[in-house]
């Protein structure tokens, strides 16, 4: 029952943005114009389940639009030079639209610019790559990460009104997502004087790698005897560290993060024995790639562009209020599915190849 409530809530959240511009005449969405094109999608790093679901979301969108005759995908494997040559390869293949997850940030700008100058509709999304829309690339489809930080901040303020120590962790050092989230957090909590940000500012870098996250978290757990809240923009990557620390007697604190089935199940397994463990998640935004795809296809095929330029940050689970959803795990599904995504958990579980 709870699982079905979550699925419905997730679907509502995820589709609220992408569906607003997806009204179709004869099954074809409005963003899909008549001009036939081939399209490219390049990932700076494609080697985790989050990216797998995100890429599958792009494929689902493309299936709705018969004008896109072929979709090419390339994974930069976390190497900036490969990510750059992937973009050049897409241009050489003659794609007319290109969606890029520029993990390496501003290092990707020259490659984006060269694709744009070659006449390709170039849409970097999610990570800020610098530059100017209309000059270096067609447009940037961002997300409101400052608002994610604000949402975490408001939840912390409500649930730990007496203040506390907050540890912030994010991806690679200097990434724009982590910096924006920290900005939002500081905006809400920084003025109160009750909360102290511990660890390096603006966040402890982990590269979103579970191994590094484990090293960073265990060092922080050892260093700071009092951690009241941990914030992270990739909640599932914390689970192995939290589990190991909890088993050695550490008290799991409140956590404000992004969702993932493994994290929800970890919460359910530990809530009875960990009284301080409260969990709040924002949607992990696998569907951000859908909005970027719609923009790229609309501009390249002559379709109607979506209304939204920014993918919103939506609240997903709250273990205290149960709103918009209580925390619930689907034990029947793998840990690496994301119930906030538009694609169902069951379908995500079946994804195996790109």
């Amino acid at each position, binding site marked *: 029952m709870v699982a079905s409530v979550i699925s419905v809530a997730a679907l509502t959240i995820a589709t609220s943005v992408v569906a607003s511009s997806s009204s179709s005449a004869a099954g074809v969405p409005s963003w899909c114009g008549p001009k036939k094109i081939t399209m490219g999608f390049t990932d700076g790093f494609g080697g*985790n389940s989050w990216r797998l679901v995100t890429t599958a979301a792009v494929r689902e969108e493309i299936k709705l639009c018969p004008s896109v005759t072929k979709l090419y995908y390339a994974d930069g494997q976390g190497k900036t030079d490969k990510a750059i040559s992937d973009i050049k390869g897409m241009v050489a293949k003659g794609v007319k639209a290109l969606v890029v997850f520029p993990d390496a940030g501003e290092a990707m700008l020259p490659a984006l610019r060269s694709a744009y100058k070659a006449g390709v509709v170039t849409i970097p999304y999610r990570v800020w790559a610098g530059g100017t829309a209309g000059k270096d690339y067609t447009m940037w489809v961002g997300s409101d990460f400052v608002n994610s930080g604000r949402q975490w901040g408001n939840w912390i303020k409500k649930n730990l009104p007496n203040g506390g120590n907050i540890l912030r962790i994010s991806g690679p050092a200097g990434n724009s997502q982590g910096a924006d989230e920290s900005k939002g957090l500081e905006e809400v909590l920084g003025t109160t004087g009750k909360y102290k940000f511990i660890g390096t500012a603006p966040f402890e870098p982990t590269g979103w790698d579970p*191994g590094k996250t484990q090293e960073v978290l265990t060092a922080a757990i050892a*260093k700071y005897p009092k951690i009241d809240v941990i914030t992270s923009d990739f909640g599932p*990557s914390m689970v192995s560290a939290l589990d*190991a620390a909890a088993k050695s007697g550490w008290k799991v604190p409140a956590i404000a993060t992004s969702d993932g089935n493994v994290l929800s199940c970890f919460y359910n397994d530990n809530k009875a024995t960990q009284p301080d463990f409260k969990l709040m998640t924002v949607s992990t935004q696998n569907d951000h790639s859908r909005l970027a795809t719609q923009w790229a296809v609309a501009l390249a095929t002559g379709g109607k562009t979506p209304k939204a330029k920014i993918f919103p940050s939506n609240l997903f689970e709250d273990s205290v209020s149960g709103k918009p959803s209580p925390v619930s795990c689907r034990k029947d599904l*793998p840990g690496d599915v994301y119930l906030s995504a538009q694609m169902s958990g069951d379908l995500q579980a079946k994804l195996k190849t790109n």
Partner: protein
Amino acid sequence: MSSVQTREVKRSARLQISRGMKTVLAGVIILYVASALLAPTSVSRVAQFGMLPFAACLAIVGLGQTLVIQQGGIDLSVAGAVSLTVVIVTWGPDRHDNRLIPAILAAFAAAIITGFINGLLITKTKLNSIVATLGVNALLYGFMMALSGGSPRRTTDRLAHITNDKIFGLPHSIYLGIICAIVVTILLKRTVFGRRFEAVGANPRAALATGLKVERYQVGGYVGAQILYCIAGVVLGGVISQPTAYQGDDYVLPSVAIVVLGGTSLLGGRGFPAASALAALFLKQLDMFVLSLGVPYGVRTLVISISLMAGIALYAVNWRSVRSKFSPKNKAGSELQPA
């Protein structure tokens, strides 16, 4: 009587602690003392329990790299090998415990095949080891992508138990690291095979002249290395509950660094597996130390790099010639040179 004495001399030579071992041991002790004084939390139970399983993985990878470096090569297929194993043992079973053992066996089969490919490319086609293993690394990543689409699955419960359950308060992963170090050390230092393996690495031509099947030992080094990378991959897959597809990327340079820190020459020959394994502990504790110091990320990277450079300089720099250049005797001599 005299023969007994000769035997004793030989034995003591075998039991002799290498210069690399002494250096690394001193380094580890100094590092732990510095950690206890400057960043006491880095030696706390929680920090050590978080760090040691990763040190064990790095140690096992380093043991493999030691075997290759002993044969005068460098193995850059570490990244692909560890990543492929992690993917096979997590993606293969896909949460089903009953599929874990076949997946582990498949990973070992892939490792042995990869070792043979590496070894044969280097011995038969005389390819440079860096070029050959780099190519094989790309092949391994290609195979991994074709297999899983680049996304491993979550660790199965059984694998997590195998690596993380504890005996006498220590996780199995640590014991596995220690066992691997002991087995490789015994194999290299206490068996005829090991002595011949070192002889081949030190001077393949001389070894050939004595009738040793040089290529077999060289290929054996690469196969042994892959088996060890595979063990490390299995352990890593169990330690990290939700690994990525590129989990091995972090092991390439550290694996070479710890072999050099352990005193094994990059030119091949004698190997010091136990010292390599201990150097893995040094490197991981160094990570934990700088993390616990709470210094900014850039400073952390600098501290680690400088420490590594200092450690490697102990072997790479000819200190005797440096000393002689700066000794007063030489200076006086140079002053006497005609203008």
